[in-house]
């Protein structure tokens, strides 16, 4: 077995374990830390598959920015032991049946697909330049749509924030 395959399975095992722990933790901040580790492991897998740009973006955007905001919300909510106990009450064994069956179907499908095609990666590294040319060439429409969606979210957040600030100002006055 070559070094790359060992690294791949190691990263994949870390990703699976971390994701499993993310779902089962009752303490929200611990769950988030495992989710971050899972994202980092996925970034390593991207790198090994020859997509360094996607790997870097996975860390910068998902682990570095989005998860920080998740953690931010957890910090604001002031979750303590009570919240963890409530989580534990909600996470009953029978809750696992539905999602378990659904993911089981997906797992079987994936095993079938992997068994059918041995080579998952093209083996050629994709440079940042190639990604950029693809994004602003054939996939321009998707980029524009994402931009519009983000702009709408920004305007919405500004609107809600403004209303809140106005109410606060009237309260003070």
């Amino acid at each position, binding site marked *: 077995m070559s070094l790359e395959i060992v690294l791949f399975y190691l990263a994949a095992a870390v990703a699976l374990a971390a994701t499993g722990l993310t779902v089962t933790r009752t*303490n929200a*901040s*611990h769950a988030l*830390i495992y989710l*971050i580790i899972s994202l980092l492991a996925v970034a390593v897998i991207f790198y090994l598959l020859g997509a*360094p*740009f996607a*790997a*870097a*973006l996975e*860390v*910068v955007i998902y*682990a*570095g*920015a989005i998860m*920080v*905001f998740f*953690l*931010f919300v*957890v*910090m*604001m909510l002031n979750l303590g032991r009570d919240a963890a106990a409530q989580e534990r009450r909600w996470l009953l064994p029978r809750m696992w049946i539905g999602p378990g069956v659904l993911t089981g179907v997906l797992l079987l499908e994936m095993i079938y697909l992997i068994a059918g095609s041995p080579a998952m990666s093209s083996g050629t590294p994709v*440079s*940042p*330049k190639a990604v950029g040319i693809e994004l602003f060439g054939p996939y321009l429409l998707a980029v524009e749509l994402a931009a519009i969606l983000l702009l709408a979210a920004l305007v919405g957040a500004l609107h809600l924030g403004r209303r809140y600030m106005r109410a606060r100002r009237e309260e003070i006055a």
Partner: protein
Amino acid sequence: MDLELDIAFIMIAPVLGGALLSAALLIWWERRLLGFWQDRLGPNRVGPFGLLQIVADVVKLFTKHDWVPPFSDRVVFTLAPTAIAAGMLMGFAVVPFGPGLAVSDMNIGVLFFLAMTSIAVYGVLLGGLASNNKYSLLGGLRSGAQMVTYEVFMGLSIMGVVLLTGSFNLSEIVRAQEDVWFVFPQVLGFIVFLIAGLAETHRLPFDLPEAEHELAAGFHTEYSSMKFGLIMVGEYLGVILTSAMVVTLFFGGWLGPGFLPPIIWFSLKTAFFVCGFILLRAAIPRPRYDQLMSLGWKILLPITLVNLLATGAIALLRAGA
């Protein structure tokens, strides 16, 4: 390929050792320089010029009681300082100290640096959260907002340099500066990067996560002994890493007149910016938190966008001509 791997493995130990040693030296150097600028002596008793003060400090930190508060989240509390130091140390992997002298000369070097600094944010955030203390929590929240905000400008301010070079590779960025350092065409990018770097490393004047006049010691209020030491080392590593990146991106990296070897030029330039960081601490008072945020979104963001637009237009014109 194998030769490259060998160079990488040989480089790891000196880079890690050098970074940690300079971070330790910086603890003494900062106090001496601050003393000089504030018209006093600073630590000058232990050893020549007070150099052994570092040893005294380390012995003191190691012999202090390593207290983990019983009300804290023990595991996260213990792991958080390592995230700060490890993230910053990982960042050194892509710094080109000389031609071919980097642990990894990967083609996404700039992005790797940004990724590792964003990992270091977690140390501060989780440290603040796990301490289970009001001051720590406020410090952690502040640092989260501050660092995510300034990461945006940091990334955008580098993009001008990337545009002019046409690569994310740090060695190629240095080689592209043989005619003229990027600080001249990218002066706006340089200013924004410097300010963002200061905010990223949460150094004075932007040390609002630990602002001692209002938050005790902010996110590291509960930390003692070597855990506190690790946080401090992480902070100094951040200062050195940011200075090294300023030099690499805007001041020609290892390039310089031939009478000194490239690595000496690189070290001298980096040392200059480290001293600059310390001088800023001595000279500028801390802004209010909302002032810091509005400086970011209302001034720095437009500046970087205009800079990027102009750089893009010039690059397009040049490519067309």
